[in-house]
């Protein structure tokens, strides 16, 4: 039985190879856009959705990353998981770089970072002040993104229903059941929603978050 590396090469050389690659690039583009909205940052280190897809596929073909066909029979799904993990790690690093310790001189005269704040000591699982600030910023950006999406779907009944259902589930069949919209119309709404997401640039989300902050 050929290994995952050989199987991946066979599939990518085959008739579906190009389509898998296209769909992967499309997926990476969507993920990077929404991660960007939530963090207010572009992909770091001159990475792009395309470069991430390229690197992931190279890693699979070279055996640096492995595809276990028994665990995930569809190559596209396996590659999507790897792309999601890569993009997730890159944005985590962006956030880590933003959490600079705030140096504070406590009454004992010693300088301490946010990690030494009493609240952090009392609640080890809680957020330190820098993380708390970052979370607040992130929430503002997420609210701004949500409001921009809401404006775009206004007046479209199917989109509005799907939008509401997305607060509870990500499954098209569950959304169809919750909204009483036929599954084919849920898929159409998904395509439309995807186009809307692709139309909202990061700068617009950041600008909206700032405006909402000022008002």
């Amino acid at each position, binding site marked *: 039985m050929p290994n995952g590396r050989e199987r991946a090469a066979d599939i*990518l050389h085959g008739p579906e190879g190009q389509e898998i*690659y296209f*769909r992967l690039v*499309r997926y990476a583009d969507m993920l990077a856009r929404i991660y960007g909205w939530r963090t207010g940052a572009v992909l770091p280190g001159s990475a792009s959705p*395309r470069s991430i897809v390229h690197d992931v596929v*190279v890693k699979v073909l*070279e055996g640096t990353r492995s595809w276990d066909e028994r665990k995930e029979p569809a190559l596209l799904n396996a590659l999507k998981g790897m792309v999601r993990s890569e993009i997730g790690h890159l944005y985590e690093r962006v956030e880590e770089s933003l959490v600079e310790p705030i140096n504070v001189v406590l009454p004992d005269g010693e300088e301490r970072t946010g990690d030494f704040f009493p609240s952090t000591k009392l609640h080890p699982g809680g957020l330190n002040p820098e993380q708390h600030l970052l979370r607040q910023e992130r929430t503002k950006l*997420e609210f701004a993104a949500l409001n921009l999406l809401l404006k775009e779907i206004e007046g479209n009944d199917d989109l509005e229903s799907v939008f509401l259902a997305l607060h509870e589930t990500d499954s098209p069949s569950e959304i169809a059941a919750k909204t009483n919209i036929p599954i084919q119309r849920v898929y159409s709404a*998904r395509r439309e929603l995807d186009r809307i997401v*692709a139309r909202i640039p990061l700068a617009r989300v950041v600008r909206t978050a700032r405006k909402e902050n000022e008002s």
Partner: protein
Amino acid sequence: MTDKNKKSDEVARFLDNLMSFLADDDLRGKDLAEDLRARGLNPDHIADELRDLLREHAPTWSEKAERERLSALESFTGARETVHRPRMKTVELIKQVVEQMRRLGAPVTAGAYHQKFQEASDTDLESLLEDLRTQYELLNSQKNKDAQ
């Protein structure tokens, strides 16, 4: 949990669900290419990228064979180049052999090649030199025999 925290968790969950909901698509062929264009991505460039990537990291048997053939050809050419003499030197040697043959009183038909030196390839010149040397050796040995 405060109302504010609850709301922010709801928004975060919505965006998580949105990413997951949009992860699947039913686009095919031209629609997929069109969708990429709408995102400002050129499907032709992406297709080229995949082709290059596969050629580099997962070559087919024929691509491997072609790569090995080119590599062998390159090493062969490289090896030849190490013993290859400059073109002008070959022309000079031809002229010297022609002159030696003339001194032996032989009709030098090779003189006709002179005009073609500019057009002839390096390989042709090397072969002409070899031929003339052989002819010269024959002529010389004949001359020596005659002298005895």
